């Protein structure tokens, strides 16, 4: 069976983020380079029909940070509930940490491996100790801002645990969800997840009688009590629209399930949910979600030690390296003046 490959996130940094960072750097952080909490968002994977060729074009698996990403720091400081960060109905908010370096040399020379491992450890601890799924898509971002030139060097990492042996996908691959679940089921799932205060990044689905019900992943044991393993559906909002590669968040979700319920999760029925933008389902609704069964063959180690993790974002050249955002064309007053009509 083929090894299951996950589509990594590709970061999109809104110019508003850099503007906010500039303000923060000048007015608040100054020379401090402590880590700050930030948030980022992703949505269900998008694809679009090309009007000229009529084909479906798959867009990349975006992960965005914007001006509002820094708000979490204020929220935490003032002790408000995280619910004030409540995302809109179709985005998932992930938390992460952010570190800005004062010089390019520091940015280059920092012990990135240690940094990465520390962050991965936080995710692992949250799995083992609190059994919470809120940290599963934790990310971090290191930056160096060359404020005078309006250049921003940055590097994202989305730590994900490496499973040994690797997860495999059944030979039949990913099937359209409508082939497995009925339209009513999908519609019901959609209604249930959309009616929650915030869209759940991960959730469980089971059939009970004629209806389907949805629950938090944290309730795995009680929710799936008495449900045969092959009918337990584990679902997540899939930021990847690629039909063969599910999105990155699934990786840590599988790690989570396998760490906590090793016996029951050598084979997992996964629902890649991509339909949370549907408001009113009709019989003609085109459901984009997919279903597939993933396996762990061989003896998977059932240890609670942190597995190794990967997840540095590659630069546009496909190498492990930092990226550069040059905002001079949109920020430099002289360049803007030249642009003006």
């Amino acid at each position: 069976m083929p090894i299951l490959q996950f589509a990594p996130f590709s970061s999109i940094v809104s110019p508003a983020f850099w503007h906010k960072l500039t303000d923060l750097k000048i007015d608040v952080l100054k020379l401090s380079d402590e880590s700050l909490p930030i948030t980022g968002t992703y949505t269900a994977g998008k694809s679009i029909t090309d009007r000229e060729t009529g084909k479906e074009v798959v867009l990349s698996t975006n992960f965005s940070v914007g001006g509002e990403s820094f708000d979490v720091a204020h929220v935490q400081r003032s002790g408000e509930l995280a619910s004030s960060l409540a995302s809109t109905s179709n985005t998932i908010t992930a938390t992460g940490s952010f570190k800005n370096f004062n010089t390019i040399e520091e940015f280059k020379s920092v012990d990135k491996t240690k940094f990465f491992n520390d962050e991965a450890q936080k995710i692992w601890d949250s799995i083992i100790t609190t059994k919470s799924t809120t940290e599963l898509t934790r990310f971090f971002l290191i930056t160096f801002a060359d404020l005078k030139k309006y250049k921003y060097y940055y590097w994202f990492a989305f730590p994900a645990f490496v499973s040994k042996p690797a997860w495999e996908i059944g030979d039949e691959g990913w099937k359209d969800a409508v082939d497995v679940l009925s339209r009513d089921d999908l519609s019901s799932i959609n209604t249930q997840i959309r009616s929650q205060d915030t869209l759940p990044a991960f959730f469980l689905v089971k059939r009970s009688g004629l209806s389907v019900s949805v629950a938090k992943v944290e309730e795995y044991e009680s929710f799936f009590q008495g449900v045969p393993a092959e009918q337990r559906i584990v679902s997540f909002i899939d930021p990847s629209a690629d039909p063969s590669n599910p999105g990155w968040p699934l990786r840590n979700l599988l790690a989570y399930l396998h760490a906590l319920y090793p016996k029951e999760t050598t084979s997992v029925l996964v629902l890649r949910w991509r339909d949370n933008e549907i408001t009113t389902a009709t019989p003609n609704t085109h459901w984009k979600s997919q279903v597939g069964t993933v396996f762990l063959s061989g003896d998977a180690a059932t240890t609670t030690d942190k597995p190794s993790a990967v997840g540095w974002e590659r630069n546009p050249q496909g190498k492990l390296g930092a990226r550069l955002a040059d905002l001079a064309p949109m920020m430099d007053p002289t360049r803007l003046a030249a642009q003006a009509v």
Partner: protein
Amino acid sequence: MQAIQSQLFGLREYLSPVLKESKFKEHGRITPEEFVAAGDFLVYKFPVWSWEKGDDSKARDFLPKEKQYLVTRGVPCLRRAQSLAYTDADEDAERLLSFGDGANAGEGEEWVETHAGRKAAMNPASDSAGLAEIPDDDGDDVARGVGNLSLGGGQGESNDTPDLDDIPDMEEEDLEEGDEATAKPKPAASATTAGAGSNQPDPSKSNLLQVRTYDVMITYDKYYQTPRVWLIGYDENGKPLTPPQIFQDISADHAQKTVTIEPFIHSASLQAASVHPCKHSSVMKKVIERMNNSVVAEQLAQQTKASPPSSSAAGKESSSSKRKWFGRKSSGTTKEAAAAEDEEGPEGMRVDFYLVVFLKFIASIVPTIEVDSTTSF
């Protein structure tokens, strides 16, 4: 110069009174309340849109604090507007689109769709020809931008390698080991062709299609009393687009005339491309007039059929959603519409649809940016 102009416009907007009376059918203008109502409808029907509160210091007091402007992120833009340039050859390809729903459709309600059946005319040559039109009067930067772009157009190389000197030498390939479970990093241009053996697609024959994305914001312009559109673009690697690059995605009639780079009004420092709203109301008026006539006629027709009244809000909502006259693929859903039609007299087009219609209009200015999510559903 532009800074002064922007200041002036800012002052002018500040001084102009808030529109109180509903005038959307007479002038194509809307009040802030109608903007909010139309925005709520847009957000409800098309959750890709959401309300933002923006920078608190820039909040407008005539709009609710949490509903200052509308935003949708990551709007794809498959090709450059130049590839849609209208030529004589395209004239034959015009096609009449009917926006009517059922019986009343067809009577003078058609819109002309140009480029119908057009093949993807995307090749490096036309691309760079288009690029050459960008005025290079601001010297090196634009020239370099153009150079980079046409290079990208020809080779499929990443055209975004910023000056290599600028990127510190910090590739650290030993940072982590190869991982078999990571999907191969795809050059973004071919992200669209990813996935072996699947049904996806190279959107055009030439292998190099830049999939840019845009953040699109809709604000309320108090002076012109219309919505106003703002664009922030990213290239296929998530890097912000420069103004000349953004102008590539705007139809030639508008680039650098009605579309300019200006400070975004809900942020202290952000710059965004904006479609100047001075002609919005007259265009909207025309469009609304046509649509209104058809809607009124339809509603009258419904009334004579005397279907049972359902005046509840929910009833209206569903009737609104059933009316597919604003969709491209309007098909015969007359029965559904009839069943759910509300019976409060021929009120005509409801202001809720204003933004849906507005997006159609904006789509003509930025033909390759898929802002009009109302058709892709």
